[in-house]
């Protein structure tokens, strides 16, 4: 009897032992909260800049006021123990000997007016300028906000974010690892690398793009696209094509074009709708797409082509010289893991390279 009881007990223990952690977690929950869903974050590119500006206005304004009234550099500390330096308008940053030698400033910098930064220097704290922010070459900035323009030299590194309420101009071979945005214009030099950028107008190196040709000037001269084979169409001009789709040069189509493989829009062609290729999409020289351009792999925009809607590729986007994406009235987005843009292109809106963006030299 004892043996049987022991056997039963052993079996019960062997059965329940693996369930012990589950039973304990059930009876004494240690991880029962709902999954954290961020509801207040809308994904705006200037989210950090806006938060920082709010912080400066609510917490740090007394330092700025004191710097203006004293007319000299003021030092102070933040609630979290960090140090800050407040400068009056148009004054030069004075540093202690050790920091000047190391060419690194760890304090948060506040400028009551325009602020000029020295060249070849590391700023590991945030920078705020209530006016324009200028800097020489080879600067490394953690984050910077200017209510006016930002003008930085070649080989500038931005580690987290940079925002100018006016224009932001960054020199050649800059590296923008975080978010960069501007209220009016963003100008990026050749050979630069970027992640996420936004401005109503983004220019890549200071080459002016060709003026866009009005659609009504040319539409009467180009032919309507002929219905391809193997097409599945719906009433609204949406064509679904099995295999490759080639839109002949100097033709136009009203509606969306979708190819299960590659899609090529010929030179001078015009699509009054969106295009999608489940592999690659090529917009030939001077072609125009009024809607989105979506590719399962790669989007290539050749010289002087235009796209008004978003450009989405799952591998790479290549944009040639003279191309225009979006319009001032209808800003849009370019998104892909890798984006390569030639000097002379113009984008109105957002450019988001998840892995690497590059301005060709």
């Amino acid at each position, binding site marked *: 009897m004892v043996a049987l009881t022991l056997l039963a007990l052993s079996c019960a223990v062997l059965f329940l032992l693996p369930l012990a952690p589950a039973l304990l977690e059930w009876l004494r929950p240690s991880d029962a909260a709902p999954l954290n869903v*961020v509801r207040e974050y809308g994904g705006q590119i200037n989210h950090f800049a806006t938060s920082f500006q709010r912080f400066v206005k609510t917490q740090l304004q007394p330092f700025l006021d004191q710097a203006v009234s004293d007319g000299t550099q003021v030092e102070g500390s933040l609630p979290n123990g960090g140090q800050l330096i407040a400068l009056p308008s148009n004054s030069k940053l004075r540093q202690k000997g050790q920091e000047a030698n190391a060419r690194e400033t760890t304090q948060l910098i506040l400028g009551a007016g325009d602020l000029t930064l020295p060249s070849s220097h590391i700023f590991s704290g945030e920078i705020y300028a209530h006016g324009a922010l200028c800097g020489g070459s080879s600067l490394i900035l953690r984050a910077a906000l200017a209510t006016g323009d930002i003008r930085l030299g070649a080989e500038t590194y931005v580690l987290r974010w940079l925002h100018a309420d006016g224009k932001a101009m960054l020199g050649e071979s800059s590296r923008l690892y975080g978010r960069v945005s501007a209220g009016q214009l963003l100008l990026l030099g050749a050979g630069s690398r970027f992640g996420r950028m936004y401005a109503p107008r983004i220019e890549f190196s200071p080459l002016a793009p060709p003026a866009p040709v009005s659609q009504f000037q040319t539409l009467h001269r180009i032919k309507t696209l002929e219905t391809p084979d193997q097409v599945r169409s719906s009433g609204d001009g949406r064509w679904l094509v099995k295999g490759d789709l080639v839109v002949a040069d100097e033709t136009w189509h009203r509606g969306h074009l979708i190819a299960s493989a590659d899609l090529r829009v010929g030179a001078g062609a015009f699509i009054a709708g969106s295009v999608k290729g489940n592999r690659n999409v090529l917009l030939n020289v001077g072609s125009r797409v009024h809607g989105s351009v979506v590719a399962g792999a790669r989007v290539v925009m050749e010289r002087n082509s235009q796209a008004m809607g978003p450009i989405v590729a799952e591998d790479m986007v290549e944009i040639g010289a003279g191309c225009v994406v979006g319009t001032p009235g209808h800003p849009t987005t370019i998104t892909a893991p890798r984006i390569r843009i030639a000097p002379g292109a113009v984008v109105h809106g957002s450019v988001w390279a998840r892995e690497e963006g590059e301005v060709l030299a």
Partner: protein
Amino acid sequence: MPKLTLRLFPAIARTIAVGLALASCQLYAASSSGEEPAPVVPITLPVMQDFPTYYGDAVPPKQSLRIKPFSEWQPLPSKSGFVSSQLPQISNETTVVALALLLLVFSLIVVYTLRHYYFTVNRLFGRQRHPYVDIDMADWPTVTVLIAAHNEEAVIANSLEALLDVEYPPERIRLMPVNDRSTDCTKEIIDRYVARFPGRITPFHRSGGKPGKSAALKDVCELVDSDVIIIFDADYVPGKGLIKQLVAPFLDPENGAVMGRVVPLNTGSNLLTRLLDLERSGGYQVDQQARMNLHMVPQYGGTVGGVRRAALESIGGWRDDALAEDTDLTYRLLLAGWKTVYQNRSECYEEVPESWPVRVRQIMRWAKGHNQAALRYAVRLLFSRGVSFAERVDGLLLLGVYAMSPLLLLGWGLAIFLFYCVSNQWLSGALIMFALMSYGALGNFAAYFEISAAVYLDGNRNRIRLLPLNLFGFLISLLAIARATWNQFFFDWLLRRSLVWDKTVRYRQPGATPAPSEAPPGLRHQAGRLG
């Protein structure tokens, strides 16, 4: 095409049956050790001489194995040695059929197990697709947000507040609460909001007509003229950026529908809600995202999702006779050349059932709807030209998901039946294998692996300890689905019973706000890690 289908079916059925039987012969010969003077000849195919088969007297020629036409099959000799019945009441033919069915069920379970593994491995190590999540600027299309509400006085205000606060051009969004025959204060609450926010909310009060969400959606969609329709249930509380995230995929002209991720809010209520939280994680974080990654068929889920109006019109609108309007829509769009997109980072809280009866009713409703869609679309999908191979296979497996529960029960029954009725020892081996595979399909190996991976990707830790208890949840679902299927096929259809719309119970108290979250983007769960 249907004629071809009809012609093909008998041939396919015969081929499968003969193949299964032949496989059985080989298995038997390899493992037979019964008392009967069975021909214990180790068989390799080229020397199949003097081996009794169920062909009767006809012996296959040497050096080759021929399949006799089905019509020429003869009754099994009583002492053939092949799956012979031990019971006089059960004929040998019955046991052959039972064995063939058991092997068929066994094969299906293996397929579904492999599918679970494939999805999980893809989610853990494959390339993740989130092509539209970064679109933050565009010429946004016009949107109507439908909030399905039937007796939702406890939650409708929260939902409207949250939707009024979303970041979307106000002139391009219209909120339309669909008050479907509510008998509580839902109408009054909606009207109060309409008065407070003039021009932003267009209420749709429905006092009659066919019951159910599909019918209500069908009615309201006649009034919608926007490019995109986004649908929420009244207990959902969207975040600020959610509408843009859900609309962004419609900038791709190939997409007809979008689905976001549903996250349980009341996880801490009791064991059931915690188990459902794990199950939902597996379903969305792994299943749906893997389908998205692999260009398969992510499923539109009926809420936290949307549909393009042009796509909806091209397939004839909502079907008010669909028991699961979401599944129905997914497949009709697929067959018409539209894709459904899953946005794993478009998350929204929902309430999950807090009591087992409510859960059972919910899953029974889903099962009936899914089975209805399977019967309507499986054959069309199989022979559809515009659908890729991956979509075809995944779509069929997805349609069959709820049919697996009754099949699994059938398999168990068959295994037990054969175990007691048939003399052959190898069947006990099959029984063990079947039991193992059932276990794998139910719990430890496949679905459990999927849930574990999902919890890991979500960045949670201790809740994974509850995993073994999910077995009970699975078993209850198994029985509920089997019961729903049985009722559907043998009562609802035979007796022409119509579905009684069964609204899921809400647990939130009126005025209570859902758990807010202010975590900065950098501290989010999986999103950053798997980007």
